[in-house]
């Protein structure tokens, strides 16, 4: 039985800041940071935005493009590492906001930057087994780096939502597989405000090992080579890693360009691969094939082999903003305004 994508929607907050501006404040060479990370700017959420509002906006954009009755949604999972509540699922609020409540199951997922793709896999299993008709999988984050930390140059905000089903598919998911190990490259303890990372450990044994292992496994199982795909989307903690991993695997820059957003909006964590895939679906044509590999620290990778169906021609893309529209709707902030909107300044306790 075919399982795949019925609809999708994206959302990126409007504010941006440049590495040069962050570097200016902390005495770091922002120009060099921008070059080394290949990040021109990163998105910044407003003080009234969080993972709930980003997930809701992405999910509503997804529903606007679809004719599916929200009451037919049987599951809703939100993957993030910045859920606003430690206890009280983001998914409950999103389900209510898209009128899918109360007859569905919901839960929040956590697996660093790949929680959104883990949610897609879970929906695929439930839809494929006939347990539910449609499932919603969302990856969204509003991640923060400690002021002055290298992560501050890349950690950003955004998300995308996917409606997974068996019929009305605009893209069929031919296969998914994962690669998971216990690798301490990046973590945040309960209650800690900012994450910690294992420095150099975040590269070779973590990102590259997991992404290439999952990618090779998927191509082996499918009997494909990089040349069989029109597009490839890799997790993009910065602008450099996905380019390098693509080259290692034998993919070209032309294949990855459409799904490479980090240079313009920074690392949206759980939102990164879902947004990259959305950006590809915005321009993909029938029968084009998409290769996707997400990565989450801790660590694991989820890989997907996707084929666009002829139904994408009649898909109502224009009912919601494209990823390009969202990337281009921007307003730049100076560091002081950025610190203010991100709550990095200690304020007097708000009274009721």
């Amino acid at each position, binding site marked *: 039985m075919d399982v795949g994508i019925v609809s999708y929607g994206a959302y990126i907050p*409007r504010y941006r800041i440049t590495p040069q501006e962050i570097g200016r404040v902390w005495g770091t060479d922002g120009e060099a940071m921008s070059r080394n990370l290949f990040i021109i700017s990163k998105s910044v959420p*407003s*003080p*009234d*935005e*969080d993972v*709930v*509002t980003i997930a*809701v*906006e992405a999910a509503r954009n997804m529903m606007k493009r679809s004719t599916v009755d929200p009451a037919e949604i049987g599951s809703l999972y939100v993957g993030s590492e910045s859920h*606003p*509540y430690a206890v009280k699922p983001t998914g409950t*609020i999103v389900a*209510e*906001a898209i*009128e899918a409540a109360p007859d569905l199951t919901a839960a929040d997922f956590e697996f660093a930057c790949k929680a959104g793709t883990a949610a897609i896999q879970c929906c695929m299993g439930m839809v494929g087994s006939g347990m539910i008709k449609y499932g919603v999988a969302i990856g969204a984050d509003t991640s923060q780096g400690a002021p002055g930390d290298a992560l501050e140059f890349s950690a950003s905000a955004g998300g995308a939502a996917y409606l997974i089903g068996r019929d009305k598919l605009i893209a069929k998911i031919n296969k998914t597989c994962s690669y998971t190990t216990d690798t301490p490259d990046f973590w945040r303890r309960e209650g800690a405000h900012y994450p910690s990372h294992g420095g150099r450990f975040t590269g070779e044994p973590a990102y590259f090992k997991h992404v290439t292992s999952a990618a090779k496994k998927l191509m082996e199982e499918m009997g494909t080579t990089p040349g069989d795909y029109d597009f490839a989307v890799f997790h993009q903690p910065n602008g450099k890693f996905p380019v390098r991993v693509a080259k290692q695997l034998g993919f070209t820059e032309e294949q990855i360009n459409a799904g490479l957003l980090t240079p313009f909006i920074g690392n949206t964590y759980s939102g990164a691969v879902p947004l990259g895939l959305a950006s590809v679906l915005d321009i993909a044509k029938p029968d084009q094939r998409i290769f996707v590999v997400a990565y989450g620290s801790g660590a694991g990778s989820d890989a997907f082999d996707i084929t666009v169906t002829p139904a994408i021609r009649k898909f109502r893309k224009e009912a919601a903003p494209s990823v390009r*529209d969202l990337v281009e*709707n921007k307003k730049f902030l100076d560091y002081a305004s950025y610190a*203010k*909107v991100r*709550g990095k300044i200690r*304020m*007097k*306790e*708000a*009274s*009721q």
Partner: protein
Amino acid sequence: MTVARFWRENSSRYNLVGVKCGNCGKVFFPPRTICPECRRLSIGKMEPYKLRGEGEVFTFSIVHDAPSQLELQKPYIMAIIEMTEGVRITAQIIDCDPAEVHIGMKVRATMRKIREEGASGIIHYGYKFIPVTK
């Protein structure tokens, strides 16, 4: 079926669900139990009605003296929005510079954080409006 059975505050706040008078067809938001014009004739005829979320600025003001909850957003825009259904709603306009807001500006509803009950309390979400860009 009574309105009370349908009406849930969150659904109303998240999805702009008001009521429509089954007697005269007028739409109300927030929901009310009887129509002020039809009165007795509207009893039992007030049906839930979801607004499309689109409208235009009827009037606005720029707020510089913000309550502590909105301290980080000041100066911010408060407006009365005339919805396409004719009903007027008071709400904040966001993602818009105070210099750019004007009467008649087309806006659409979105969901944002409205208020937090301190650092450990509940977070309230609800509607705000953003300019329609294209």
